[in-house]
């Protein structure tokens, strides 16, 4: 009996070991020096992965993202500036790869659109409020009204105290 338990234990260990191997194979080699890696992260976090468009180039595990990170590492090692690396990417994939596309006529709507809508909303609200103010005539209360208010207030006060006694 103990032998069987021992064997299954060994088997379990081997299975875990195999899984470990499988994952180890997936790990992507980092550049040798941390400085390059740091710059790579800063640059690629500002870029969109084209395969899985909701992920950044830094975070994506797609094959293309791996290849592009490899290319960016090479460019960093060649001593290219961040600007040169960005234009390397834009020349191939367009402004779409940049999370912050440059401000130019085609992206004006993208950049100022939200502010235009906000401004339109504020103006609309102001016009509406001003009109409503004008349409509600201010009235002064008569003696009779005041007496009725007092009576009503007294009534609610006494009824609320009664309620608390219940």
């Amino acid at each position, binding site marked *: 009996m103990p032998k069987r338990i021992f064997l299954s234990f060994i088997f379990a260990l081997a299975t875990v070991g195999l899984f470990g191997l499988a994952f180890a194979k997936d790990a992507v080699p980092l550049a040798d020096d941390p400085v390059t890696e740091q710059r790579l992260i800063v640059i690629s976090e500002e870029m969109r992965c*084209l395969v899985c*468009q909701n992920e950044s180039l830094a975070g994506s595990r797609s*094959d*293309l993202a791996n*290849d*592009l990170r490899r*290319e960016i590492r090479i460019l960093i090692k060649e001593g290219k500036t961040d600007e040169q690396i960005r234009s390397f990417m834009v020349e*191939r*994939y*367009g402004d779409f790869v940049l999370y912050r596309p440059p401000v130019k006529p085609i992206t004006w709507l993208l950049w100022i659109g939200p502010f235009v809508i906000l401004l339109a909303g504020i103006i609309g609200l102001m016009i509406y409020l001003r009109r409503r103010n004008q349409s509600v005539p201010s009235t002064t209360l008569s003696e009779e009204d005041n007496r009725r208010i007092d009576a009503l207030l007294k009534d609610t006060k006494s009824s609320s105290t009664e309620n608390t006694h219940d």
Partner: protein
Amino acid sequence: MKAKFLIPLLLFAILVGFLAVGLNRDPHEVPSPLIGKQAPAFELSQLADPKKTFSPESMKGKPWILNVWASWCVACREEHPVLVELGKLQVAPIIGLDYKDKREDAMAMLARQGNPYLLSAFDANGRVGIDYGVYGVPETYVIDKAGVIRFKHIGPITMELLNQKIIPLLGELQ
């Protein structure tokens, strides 16, 4: 002032308009900045014969089609019969770019499904693919006599696309 009740209706119509446009657009089709630009130069070994090389320079003087494919790509298998059809029409030479593939797998696929390519360049590590802005295989480029990219399609080409866009464009470029 009676038209006031129409305002929400109008806003709703505008919203529906935006959503309809959004739904009918494929966000994976990113307009390529390479259109109207010179096709990037490269020199790669040929798939069938590693000793021979191919460079786009050698295609100058006639319009041609560059088709990025791979044996591991399911959509390419789907597209392949359309390319075979196009090859039969002989409107323009089709050059393949075998992207991140294994030679024997690629050769096996061509043997199985037919070979519409004049030849295929073998891009083992995908470096040339990056220069062409490839991000979803298959991709198809139409390149003119002067070596300028005139058209790019991402995803499998269909008979409709061939008849409505690619063949008329090649006719213009002749």
